[in-house]
C-alpha cells in the first residue's frame, strides 16, 4: 500500500512564504517540449518570465569517465549515445581526434564516405530539428512531413551500417565498410526529391503569418551575447558571425568541395530557421559533389578504406585471415588496444549543432588519461539564462526549439 502523504514533497508542491507575485514553474524535466531532460526553473510574472535557470544533469551517464576505462576503439559506440540525432558526427569527432593524436593519414575513399555520412547526418539532424520545432509551435503537418524524409535517410544509413540511430559507422583510421551498390542511387533519388520536399515545408511555414509572428523578433541573440556564451554553429551564424569550422579549419575534403556558409545578422528565431533551411540545401550540394568524388575514386582504383598503420590499426580482414603477422597484430590491438603516443589534442568539428570538439589527453597507455567533449548544446542551454527573461511561456518553447539542444550531448 502506498502512503502518499509520506512521500517527500516535490519541489513544485512546496509552498514558499513569498510576498511577491511570482509563480515558480518547474518546466521539465518531464515536459512535452523539454527536449530530453531539460529542467527549466521559470520565475513567472503572470506568463512573463522574470528569471530562468536551466538545470541539467538528468541524463548524465558519465561517458567521459567511462572513456577512461575503455580502449579507444571500444569507446566508439558510446559516442553514438551523445548526440543521438546525428551520431556519425560524434563518431567522426572522436575518430578525428584520435587520428590527430596518432598522426594517421586516412585513405581518400574513406574520407569521401565519411563526408557523405557526415552530411547525411547533418540533413537528418536538421530535418529532425525542423520537425520538432514545428511541432513545438503547433504545426503538426510539418512534423510528419519532415519525419518522412528523415525516415528515408535513416533507411539509407541502415543499409550502410545496419543501425538507424546509433550508427557507429566510422572507425579510427577510416571506415569499416565500403558503401553498398545502391547507396549512391538511393542518395541521388533522395537529393533530387529534396528541393520539392523542402518546398512543401517552406510553403507551410515561410510566409505563414502565424509562423512569422511566432518566430520574428523572438529570442533575439545579439552578436556579443552569442560570442560571450560560446554559441557556435547555426546559433552563431544566425547572430551575424560567419564561422563554420568546415571553412575555417577544413578537415577531411571540405576544402575541395564548394559550399556557402549561410549567415544572418538578425539573430532571432526566424533567422535561425532560415539558416537551418539554407544549410540543408548546402548539405545537399556537398553530397552531390561527394557522389562525384566517390565515382572518381572508383576510376582511380583507390579502394583502401582503412589507414595503413600496423601499430594502431588492424590489417584488412583478408590479411588477418591469411597472414600470421596480421592476425597477431589484430589480436594485440583487440585485446590490449592501441597505445597512442603521449600528448594531448583538441580537435573541433562542425557537427550539425555547432562546434563539437574532443579533447584527449594520452599518457601512452591503451586508455585515454582524460577525455573531454565540448558539446555545442551545453553552451546553447546556457544562453537561455540571459535569453528567456522578458519572454512569455509560448516563446520559451519556440526558443528552446530553435536552440536545437539535445540532452544526450549536454549531460553525456
Amino acid at each position: 500500500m502506498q502512503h502518499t502523504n509520506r512521500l517527500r514533497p516535490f519541489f513544485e508542491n512546496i509552498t514558499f512564504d513569498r510576498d511577491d507575485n511570482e509563480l515558480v514553474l518547474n518546466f521539465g524535466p518531464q515536459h512535452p517540449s523539454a527536449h530530453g531532460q531539460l529542467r527549466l526553473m521559470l520565475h513567472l510574472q503572470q506568463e512573463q518570465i522574470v528569471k530562468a535557470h536551466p538545470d541539467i544533469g538528468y541524463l548524465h551517464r558519465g561517458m567521459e569517465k567511462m572513456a577512461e576505462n575503455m580502449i579507444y576503439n571500444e569507446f566508439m559506440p558510446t559516442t553514438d549515445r551523445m548526440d543521438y540525432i546525428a551520431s556519425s558526427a560524434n563518431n567522426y569527432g572522436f575518430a578525428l581526434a584520435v587520428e590527430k593524436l596518432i598522426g594517421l593519414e586516412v585513405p581518400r575513399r574513406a574520407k569521401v564516405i565519411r563526408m557523405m555520412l557526415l552530411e547525411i547526418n547533418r540533413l537528418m539532424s536538421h530535418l529532425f530539428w525542423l520537425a520538432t520545432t514545428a511541432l513545438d509551435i503547433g504545426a503538426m503537418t510539418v512534423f510528419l512531413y519532415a519525419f518522412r524524409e528523415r525516415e528515408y535517410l535513416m533507411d539509407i544509413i541502415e543499409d550502410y551500417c545496419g543501425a538507424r540511430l546509433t550508427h557507429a559507422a566510422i572507425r579510427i583510421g577510416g571506415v569499416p565498410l565500403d558503401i553498398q551498390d545502391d547507396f549512391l542511387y538511393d542518395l541521388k533519388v533522395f537529393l533530387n526529391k529534396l528541393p520539392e520536399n523542402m518546398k512543401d515545408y517552406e510553403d507551410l511555414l515561410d510566409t505563414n503569418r502565424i509562423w512569422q509572428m511566432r518566430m520574428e523578433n523572438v529570442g533575439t541573440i545579439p552578436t556579443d551575447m552569442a560570442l560571450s556564451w560560446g554559441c557556435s554553429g547555426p546559433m552563431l551564424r544566425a547572430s551575424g558571425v560567419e564561422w563554420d569550422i568546415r571553412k575555417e579549419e577544413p578537415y577531411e575534403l571540405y576544402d575541395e568541395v564548394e559550399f556557402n556558409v549561410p549567415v544572418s545578422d538578425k539573430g532571432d528565431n526566424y533567422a535561425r530557421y532560415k539558416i537551418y533551411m539554407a544549410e540543408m540545401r548546402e548539405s545537399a550540394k556537398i553530397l552531390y559533389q561527394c557522389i562525384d568524388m566517390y565515382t572518381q575514386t572508383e576510376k582511380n582504383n583507390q579502394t583502401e578504406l582503412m589507414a595503413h598503420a600496423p601499430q594502431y590499426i588492424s590489417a584488412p580482414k583478408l590479411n588477418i585471415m591469411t597472414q600470421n603477422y596480421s592476425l597477431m597484430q589484430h589480436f594485440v590491438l583487440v585485446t590490449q588496444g592501441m597505445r597512442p603516443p603521449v600528448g594531448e589534442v583538441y580537435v573541433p568539428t562542425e557537427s550539425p549543432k555547432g562546434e563539437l570538439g574532443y579533447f584527449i589527453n594520452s599518457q601512452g597507455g591503451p586508455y585515454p588519461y582524460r577525455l573531454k567533449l565540448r558539446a555545442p548544446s551545453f553552451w546553447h542551454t546556457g544562453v537561455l539564462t540571459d535569453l528567456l527573461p522578458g519572454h512569455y511561456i509560448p516563446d520559451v518553447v519556440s526558443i528552446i526549439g530553435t536552440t536545437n539542444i539535445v540532452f544526450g550531448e549536454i549531460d553525456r
Partner: protein
Amino acid sequence: MQTLFNIVVFPGILYILAWTVLLFWFFRKFMAALHKRVGPSFNGPMGTYQTLFDLSKLLTKESITPKGVNPYLFSLMPLLALSIAILPTALIPWTPDITVAKSSYGLLGLVVLIGIEPFILFLTGFGSNNKYSFLGGIRILTQMISMETSFFLAALSPAILFSTLNLNSIIQQSSWLSFAILLPGFVLYFIALLGLLEQPPFNIPDAEQEIVYGFYTEYSGTNYFLLKVSEFSEFMAVFAGAVTLFLGGYKGLFFDGFSFLFAKMLIVAMIMMAIRASTPRITMKQMLMFSWKYLVPLSLVNIAWIMIAKILFFGGM
C-alpha cells in the same frame, strides 16, 4: 414516451455518444489524409472501432484524484461540463419535426449555453492544484472573454436579419440571398468558434508543448472521458449552431432532412481540420491583439452590414 426517446436516443445521450465516436474517428482519418499517413486502420472497417475501444478503455481506467483538491468538486466538474455541453442539442431543430425544447428564444439559449461551457473548463483548471492547469485556466478565461464578444455579435446577425430568436423560423426564412448576406457573419462566427473550441490556431489553453495539457493535465480515466465527450458534444452544439444560423440548417437541395444538416456539419468540421493541419499556434498576446484589434471591430462592422442589407433586401427594419 416521445420525451424519453428524445432524451435517450435522438438527439440525446446515444446520439451524442455515437457522434463522439464517429467524429473522433473522422477527425483522425481526415487528419491522417492531410498528413499523408494512414490513421487508425486495424480495428473494424477502416479502423472505425478504434475510437470505440479508446473511449471504452478510458471509461474503465482508474481516474486519479490529485492530492490537495476537493475530490467531489474535482469529479463534479466533468459531469457538469458534460451536462452543459449536451443541453444545447435540445434547442436545435434537427429535422423539421424534431426539436426537443421548442422555444421562441432558442438562439439566446444556444448562445448562452455554448458561452458558459468554458467557465466550467476554467474551474477544472483552477480546481486541479497544478500549476499547468492553473495557467490553462487563466488562458481559457482570457480567451473566452475575448472570443465570446465576437461570437455573440456574429450569432446576433441572423437574429437581426430575420427579426426572430426562434431557430426554427430562422431556418425557414433562410434562402440563398440570406446565405450571401450572412456569409461575412459566418466567417466571423467560424473564427470565434475556433477560439471557443480551443482549436488551432487558438489551441492556447491546452497547448501541449507549453503547459502540458492545460486544464486537462490532472484528469484521467472516467473524468477524462467525460471531458472528452463534453468537448465533442460542444463541437456538435457549435457546428449545429453554425449550420442552423448561417447555412440553412436541415434545408436541403431537393428535400429537407437530418442528412443535410449532418453533411453541413461535417463540412464545417472538415474546414476546421484543414485549418488545424496548416497553422501553427499563436500566443496569448497575439490572440488578444487579433481578437480586440480585428475580430471585434469587424463583428461590429458586420452588424452594420446586416442592418443595411436588411433595409436594402428585406424591406426595412
